[in-house]
């Protein structure tokens, strides 16, 4: 039963008591199940979805396409793991198509991200080429619309 995960994926701050009511279990059972998910690594963390545009200062996000040389043993994994450890890399995927790795890289300034690409990433053994795209606006993240506020258009009482 993954219903607890469905609820938490939508809102990680729902209390154990509320989840228990929704899935018809006791709070202790729900807490135990969540603990099991955490221990198994199924649940890998709880983060807050922040609209960065509301914060002072600038954050720069770039999407970087990387072509790499796969290795005889291990394929893409060794080089991918190495790249993924840089703290600037916030999301990273192996892709099919014209390039191999897709990186989401964050930095405080354009210069910082550019420096990461030219000094750290492009110089790695096995990296064949990079293509960097700077992000201009965030419309939707993890299923949440980031630039519209929801209003309830309904009548307050209806039959």
């Amino acid at each position: 039963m993954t219903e607890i995960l469905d609820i938490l994926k939508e809102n990680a701050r729902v209390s154990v008591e509320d989840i228990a009511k929704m899935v018809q279990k006791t709070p202790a059972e729900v807490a135990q199940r969540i603990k099991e998910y955490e221990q198994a690594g199924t649940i890998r963390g709880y983060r807050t979805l922040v609209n960065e545009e509301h914060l002072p200062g600038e954050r720069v996000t770039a999407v970087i396409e990387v072509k790499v040389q796969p290795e005889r043993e291990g394929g893409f994994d060794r080089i991918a793991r190495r790249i993924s450890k840089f703290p600037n890399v916030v999301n990273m995927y192996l892709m099919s198509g014209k390039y191999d790795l897709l990186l989401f890289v964050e930095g405080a300034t354009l210069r910082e991200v550019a420096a990461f690409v030219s000094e750290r990433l492009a110089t790695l053994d096995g990296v064949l080429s990079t293509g960097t795209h700077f992000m201009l606006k965030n419309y939707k993240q993890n299923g949440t619309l980031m630039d519209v506020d929801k209003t309830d258009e309904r009548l307050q009482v209806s039959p």
Partner: protein
Amino acid sequence: MSTRSQVAAHVKALPFSGIRKFFDIVASRKDVISLGVGEPDFDTPWTVREAAMWSLERGATHYTSNRGDPALRQAIARYVSAHFGATYDWQTEILVTVGVSEAIDVALRTVINPGDEVIYHEPCFVSYRPSIILAGGVPVMVETRREDQFRLTRAMLEQVVTPKTRALLLNFPCNPTGTVLSRDDVRDIAAFCMEHDLLLLTDEIYAELTYDHPHVSFVSVPGMKERTIFMHGMSKAWAMTGFRIGYACAPPEVSENMMKLHQYAIMSAPTTGQKAAAEALEHGAEAVADMVAHYNRRRHFLIASFEEMGVSCHTPAGAFYAFPYIGDLGISSEDFAMRFLEEHNVAVVPGDAFGRSGEGFLRCAYATSLDNLREAMARMAVFVNSLR
């Protein structure tokens, strides 16, 4: 100025919906948490809205045929056949209407002769009784009861049937009680209709919103399709209330004559809505399933919350309403709703808005966010305690 009334006497005699008065009071207040809304809080699935926009771009802004857009009627025929166990001919047996509300009105006016009795059940949706009266029929009310989980049984019907009875007008899953009929209930009521040679008008608008066992349609019972006007629509399960699209499936002669009334009063249902409805029927299953999962969680939450505060509530197996009993708190439904609104700023609908037998109950719609439900339930617990 003439002293003659400008309004016909039989219309003047019709009461306003009980919900309307309450609506005006709620609307005058700010920041109300409302459990009084009888429609989904979800927006219409995006692909459906997108299909509506595309139809506008393409210039589909004209009348459709009176019966409704052929593509939509074919989609309805496929959908009803797949989910309700009856096959209808899209050309002669399906009429697209402006919501189920129009379907009910047209259906009654098509089949009722003056003085015919129509049996319906209370508590029920606000339009049934007035629609029967406006069609020239005599409404015969059966009270469903808390001790039966508001189910309608054959025995109740046997008590009120007369030689003048022409039809039954039913709504399961039921607004406001959330009651769903079992397969046996459906079979028994169907047998009752056949034995007494009655027509059945069945409003199954909440059919997709059942939680404990799947909906059983009256038209799935052999022999019933021939004497049934099956009414359904897009409003609830697909969250499309504002599109105003419903439909009626009926035997060809009935359907054809319903079409006459529809043609003279309406012409055709809104074209944009019809295009959107076709998309929803063909590709909306996943969105519906997702909404149903959310409603079900909220339903469990509400039931558990009532239990916690010691308010008795039968488990509503369908729709998105809970119908808790507050008759043992020494306060009427209306007073409870008014004071709860004034003292705690939460709107619930007094049960008697759905008929006298709704007295002692409240309709609490869980078509609202968990945050709203949690806060409303916390406030209700405080209010209920203050009454004890």
